[in-house]
């Protein structure tokens, strides 16, 4: 019997380490340590309901397990064979408990290819990985395929870069392989930087061997014997598990000299990034690894010609690599049968925002936004109204109700005014203010711009200043015009992908939520009630009984007594001095009579 406990960063933060410890201790107390194996796995994806504990072989999926629940699971489930019902997932629709994850709305429409091993294996144990087919693809490449055949297979599969741009991976490998020289590099871009995104982190934490294997395959295909992983130093667990995976692979002769007796040499080194978003751009990433300032340079020359240390280099994202081994073992045709016409396979998304099931999901390309939000995501939190979904992180755009039936692939998302990006997906409801959302993303881009080109360095700053004016109620219609022109020029002139896409949140919200901008500018209103400067707090003098609690709560001394006593009340009502009000809401929170409202 196996007990799988999620050891991803999210569940670890909710005491999953303690859960594992409790399992081990109590099982030992009961003398069951040899019967039941406790495995710390990577992320299961259903972070909303974490920590997750899964009992195998009967596939029981326990959610929101607390360390003190462990004893009960052992006594009831493991010893007596009875499922602990109150720890099972409760289907929000039919209110029934579901024990097998296959039958949960969250998992039903998912297809796990890149995440195939996440949640199934102990990522720190190479044997578990091998038992699920790990390194089979590398073996196949080295013994049965020529490098060109490997490149052809990847090309045929239709796999495209999962970092966001969607460049065909096989073609990229082919371009690099053409520049044969004695020193070439395979680089894994693990500089995941979109706010709220954790796809790559989860893969590295849950299945690090898939990356090690894929990089070796790539090395074989293009003729490189050096692998470099550029990884954020803020990902300690991913770093730790990659280090273990690399060490184990070396021990097993799957890295190093003469791998599997094929004469092929390949090894991997980790390089740490300091968390600059722009270093996800491949030329900036390479400069950062070289010890230079992390800023992009113009392409051409492409890294395939002159990359790390001016040597031909192939840069792929973590998720892209994670797809490679299974393409080799199951074949390009199998992979190409999944997904849409131009976008093959699946895509991992970090689903976040005002949605019931927050977590990590993987769906076939071509799945609609509606399916993701309502089926997998379980709809909007608190039964509120859907307003927008933001894909592609700070480089993407906000899509609306009318885009919900858009099939997710590189082309359709771009046509709708957003982009695939690396896989961030943030769902927003009516409590989100769109100009404020645009401002939020722009704050991020301004912070993360390297400052090399003028449109990004100064242009984004000016857009942010205009948006700040708008959210403060100081904007004009001319500002909206200027904002649109500026966004278009920045998109047209910025040096790298960061700058060229940074206006997307602004442009897409201007296109899809023009009325909301006009309301901020002309009516000085924020319908979502987010922009504080546009709100005013008022006391209904007829409802106010004059208890004075609001005045006591007010940190700004903005509330005082009036001369007016409403009919039926004994004390004079209170009034808010709007010039002093800081819009903190403390008065409303304290008023039991519903006399205070926000306008």
């Amino acid at each position, binding site marked *: 019997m196996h007990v799988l406990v999620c050891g991803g960063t999210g569940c670890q933060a909710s005491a999953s380490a303690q859960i594992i410890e409790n399992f081990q201790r109590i099982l030992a107390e009961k003398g069951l340590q040899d019967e039941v194996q406790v495995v710390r796995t990577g992320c299961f994806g259903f972070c909303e309901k974490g920590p997750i504990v899964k009992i195998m072989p009967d596939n029981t999926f326990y959610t929101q397990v607390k360390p003190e629940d462990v004893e009960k699971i052992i006594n009831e489930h493991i010893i007596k064979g009875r499922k602990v019902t109150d720890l099972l997932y409760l289907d929000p629709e039919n209110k029934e408990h579901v024990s097998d994850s296959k039958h949960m709305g969250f998992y039903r429409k998912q297809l796990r290819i890149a995440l195939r091993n996440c949640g199934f294996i102990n990522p720190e144990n190479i044997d578990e990985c091998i038992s699920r087919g790990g390194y089979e693809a590398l073996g196949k490449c080295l013994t049965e395929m020529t490098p060109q055949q490997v490149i052809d297979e990847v090309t045929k599969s239709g796999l495209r870069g999962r970092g966001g741009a969607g460049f065909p991976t096989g073609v990229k490998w082919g371009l690099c392989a053409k520049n044969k020289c004695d020193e070439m590099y395979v680089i894994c871009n693990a500089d995941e930087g979109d706010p709220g995104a954790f796809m790559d982190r989860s893969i590295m934490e849950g299945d690090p061997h898939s990356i090690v294997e894929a990089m070796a395959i790539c090395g074989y295909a293009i003729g490189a014997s050096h692998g470099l992983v550029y990884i954020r130093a803020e990902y300690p667990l991913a770093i730790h598990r990659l280090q273990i995976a690399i060490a184990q692979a070396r021990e097993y002769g799957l890295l190093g000299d003469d791998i599997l007796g094929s004469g092929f040499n390949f090894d991997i080194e980790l390089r740490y990034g300091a968390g600059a978003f722009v270093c996800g751009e491949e030329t900036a990433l390479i400069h950062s690894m070289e010890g230079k300032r992390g800023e992009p340079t113009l392409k051409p020359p492409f890294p395939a010609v002159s990359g790390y240390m001016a040597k031909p280099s192939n840069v792929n994202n973590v998720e892209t690599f994670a797809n490679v081994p299974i393409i080799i073992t199951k074949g390009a045709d199998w992979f190409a049968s999944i997904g849409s016409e131009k976008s093959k396979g699946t895509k991992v998304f970090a689903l976040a925002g005002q949605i019931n099931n927050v977590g990590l999901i993987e769906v076939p390309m071509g799945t609609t936004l509606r399916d993701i939000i309502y089926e997998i995501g379980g709809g909007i939190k608190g039964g509120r109204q859907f307003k927008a979904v933001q894909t592609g992180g700070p480089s993407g755009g906000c899509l609306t109700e009318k885009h919900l039936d858009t099939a997710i692939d590189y082309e359709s998302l771009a046509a709708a005014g957003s982009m695939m990006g690396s896989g961030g997906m943030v769902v927003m409801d009516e409590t989100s203010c769109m100009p404020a959302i645009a401002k939020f993303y722009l704050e991020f881009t301004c912070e993360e711009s390297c400052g090399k080109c003028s449109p990004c360095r100064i242009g984004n700053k000016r857009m942010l*200043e205009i948006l700040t004016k708008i959210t403060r109620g100081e904007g004009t219609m001319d500002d909206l015009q200027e904002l649109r022109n500026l966004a278009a020029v920045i998109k047209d002139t910025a040096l790298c992908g960061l700058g060229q896409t940074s206006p997307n949140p602004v442009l897409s919200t201007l296109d899809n939520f023009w009325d909301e901008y006009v309301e901020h500018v002309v009516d000085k209103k924020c319908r979502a009630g987010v922009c504080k400067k546009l709100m005013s707090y008022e006391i209904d003098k007829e409802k106010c009984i004059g208890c004075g609690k609001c005045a006591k709560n007010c940190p700004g001394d903005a509330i005082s007594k009036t001369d007016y006593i409403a009919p039926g009340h004994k004390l004079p009502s209170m009034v808010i001095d709007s010039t002093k009000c800081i819009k903190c809401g403390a008065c409303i929170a304290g008023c039991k009579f519903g006399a205070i409202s926000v306008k």
Partner: protein
Amino acid sequence: MINVTIDNKQIQVPEGTTILKAARMAGIHIPTLCYFELAGMKFENKPGGCRVCVVEVVKDFNGRPRRNLAPACATDCVEGMEVLTHSARVINARRTVVELILSDHPTDCLTCAKSGNCELQSLAQYLGIRDIPFKGEQSHYRQDMSPSIVRDMDKCVMCRRCENMCNNVQTVGALSAINRGFSAVVAPAFEQDLVDSPCVMCGQCVQVCPVGALTEVDDTRNVMAAINNPKKTVIVNTAPATRVALGEEFGMPAGTIVTGQMTAALRRLGFDYVFDTDFAADLTIMEEGTELLGRIKRYMEGDKSVRLPILTSCCPGWVNFFEHNFPDMLDVPSTAKSPMQMFGAVAKNYWAEKMGIKREDLVVVSIMPCLAKKYESKRKEFYKDGNPDIDYVLTTRELARLIKQFNLNLKDMPSEDYDDPLGESTGAAVIFGATGGVIEAATRTAYEVFTGKPLPKIDFTELRGIEGIRDAWVDFDGTPIHIGIAHGLSNARKLLERVREGKEQFHAIEVMACPGGCVGGAGQPYHHGNSEIIKKRTEAIYREDAGKPIRKSHENPSIKKIYEEYFGEPCGHKSHELLHTHYFDKSEHVEISED
């Protein structure tokens, strides 16, 4: 050759030609800002950062229009490409980009040192910008002033020319981009002051800065105050390279020789005596040449302790550079002071005594093509009792400004001679202004002293040229002497490293910090990337030499006289006291305070 169409003009260009260069070949102007080329010096700056030169590629390599605008400076032409350099889309983008740059730039053109020479100002005029639509925060940085250079980074446009110059052409490594986003700016590491950085004050960053972010320290007010003070005797000396460049500031073609007019103008400004640094250059040859021959003689006699090659020490940027980067070789360079510092020492001792002027009442001003000279004059070893040998250094540009303030036009000036005795010089001295000149001058004298025979030919053309590193064997009547020459500090570094590693042996090496030598100095009129200008100035230097009646330093009558009257012999006791110096280890690492 590939075919491209730019603004409906079909042209053929070699493969690897950028759109910008192709357009220039076709006579089409594409405005630029960060782009900078100094063709003769193999220096090209094209970070693609400013985005002013963007153009519309209506037909790209795949036959389709390019999605976004392309930077013309850094995009190569491809077969069949069609480009529009001034479409409505381009003009709107270009204008917006320049408006953005202006929105983060102080608009203090009235008092800016660069006004009239500012590339951003010209660009704003070219684009007809009358209003800056974007109002917002402006960058503010601490002003930094070294003895040579003023850094006002509020004006920096992040063109990165200075950084490229400092790191790649000069390998000094004082400047680089720091911070990110709107706060990104070029600065020394940890935002240190320049004086605390490895900066050697060569000022080439100032020479290439398109705006007023990097400028020279202005000493014109101090000089005018001294001239206005009746108690002071104010004398001036003019460096070789100034006389072939000053004319440019008055609309004369590059390479015009204005020695006589400059002398006349300096008298009109109120200087009491107008002398020539060239006199001191002849003196330098006597000292440095003697030192060189001494070392060679000792070496040939089997003295293993002697350090060869001897390195020239006239260039203060170069002196700073080896103090920072080659502290293990401080005993290799010649101990001879630079001509300017020799002039100061002679003026404030020999001449002041002779004239009966008290040291503190004598003000010595130098007109230099150089910014490092401003720093050199402030080195403490060149002070005596708190009084410097050289009081103020003005650049060629500063002198031009003063002349204009006096409502004088150099073109209308008569040609006048320098005053005696510190004004008499030879052709050997004037060539100090160009790369290879110092060593040629030294060779002319050393040959005759060493062999005791007159030179068979006076022009050592094998030592001239524009290659960054050159070497030549000179036959000293049977003794072959190996001479190396480098200009631009990256070349100097390469040559010195070869020597340090023992890969190559030389008897003497001449180094000048600035590309082209002093003619390309940072205090010269801005060349704006036109290396033809530097070439013309160099040619003028050699023309001036050829026209001189005396062309060997040791034949200068005033030099002979000063040794008879005062110094005795070259490298003698008195000259060691006044004409030689020593060097300091400045390699210490950057220290960052704990807090």
